[in-house]
């Protein structure tokens, strides 16, 4: 029987610059309580002006090449999840990253244009691509710096989003997390809820996104647990996309799993498709046996899977 592709390692990169949100919040008439209880972010990470998406991606991926010295020669596929690519999006950022990482010509490299659900979609796409083409190692990179499109005068978005990138190494050897079945979904009738307008600035219907998250994400989590023949008691943790503290807490509470849906305290912000893999980098989850990863957002779209810890015998 062929070995199944799983997650071997993860790494993340957060640019060093932080933007404090306190003053900006005050200018919107928003107080500290709202920041800490609702958005959950008091500071957000900002890339340097000259830093490109592929630069963040490179910084995230490089540690994996150091810990896996043969990776450069063995890598077969590279996917970049982004909707804020280098330049104007042509060529695809994965090709630019391919050059910056000095990868061989044998590597397939392409982008996936998804937002906050992108890492989970990317896992499934890369796993399937690798298994179909007998590829030993693949790299899934998330890098979606919303600072490129943030409108600093927009209260709905200026207090939320931060810049970061992650890299997830998939392979058949030394697997840490096995992937179960996935569930996916889209509600294209709400595509306007998170979008970039003609002025190239991000627009978000915050209440619409919250209502969608509060109602749809719980269903998604329940569906994926059931699809994997499990019950919620079998799940140690639900890693939800960290849209905001209030969204995470609301979904957890409505699921009846509030103690299992952590909000990741940080001064980085909502980093779009990077929030779930950033959490999974944290060693505090190493002892968990089964984790649900659920991403949701732009589209509106959602996706979830169950990750089983290979080191815990599940």
């Amino acid at each position: 029987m062929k070995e199944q592709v799983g997650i071997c390692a993860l790494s993340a990169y957060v640019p060093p610059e932080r933007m404090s949100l306190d003053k900006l919040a005050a200018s919107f008439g928003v107080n500290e309580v709202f920041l800490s209880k609702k958005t959950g972010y008091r500071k957000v990470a900002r890339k340097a002006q000259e830093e490109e998406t592929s630069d963040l991606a490179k910084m995230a991926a490089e540690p994996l090449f150091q810990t896996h010295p043969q990776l450069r020669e063995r890598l077969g596929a590279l996917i970049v999840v982004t909707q804020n690519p280098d330049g104007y999006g042509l060529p695809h950022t994965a090709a630019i990253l391919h050059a910056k990482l000095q990868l061989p010509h044998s590597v397939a490299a392409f982008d996936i244009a998804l937002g906050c659900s992108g890492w989970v979609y990317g896992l499934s796409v890369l796993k399937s691509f690798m298994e179909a083409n007998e590829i030993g190692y693949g790299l899934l990179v998330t890098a979606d710096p919303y600072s490129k499109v943030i409108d600093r005068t927009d209260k709905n978005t200026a207090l939320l989003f931060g810049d970061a990138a992650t890299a997830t190494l998939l392979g058949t050897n030394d697997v840490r997390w096995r992937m179960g079945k996935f569930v996916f979904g889209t509600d294209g009738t709400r595509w306007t809820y998170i979008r970039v307008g003609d002025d190239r600035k991000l627009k978000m219907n915050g209440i619409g996104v919250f209502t969608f998250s509060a109602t749809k994400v719980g269903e998604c989590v329940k569906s994926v647990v059931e699809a994997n023949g499990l019950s919620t008691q079998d799940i140690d943790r639900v890693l939800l996309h960290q849209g905001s503290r209030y969204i995470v807490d609301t979904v957890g509470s409505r699921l009846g799993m509030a103690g299992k849906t952590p909000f990741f305290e940080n001064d980085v912000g909502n980093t779009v498709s990077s929030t779930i893999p950033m959490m999974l980098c944290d060693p505090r989850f190493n002892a968990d046996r089964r984790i649900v990863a659920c991403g949701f957002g732009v589209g509106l779209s959602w996706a979830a899977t169950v990750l089983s810890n290979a080191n815990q015998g599940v």
Partner: protein
Amino acid sequence: MLTETDVRDALHNTINSDDVFSWSKDFNFREGALDSLDHATFLLALAEQHDFKFAEQDMPKLNTIQVVLDYAAQVTS
């Protein structure tokens, strides 16, 4: 049938303040008492616990106890 008590209880559960029991039925709770997220949470709780259906575009106007009761009566009639 949604009652005034149902609405006040849902408001109380959302913001955990006894003030909601002294608000008049015409008090606009969007003016300082509930922020937009609290407001959405309150309406979702009503919808879940009392089979109260509301259209997303109508959310902004559901901002007093009386309006919520009138809306519920209209939707279910």
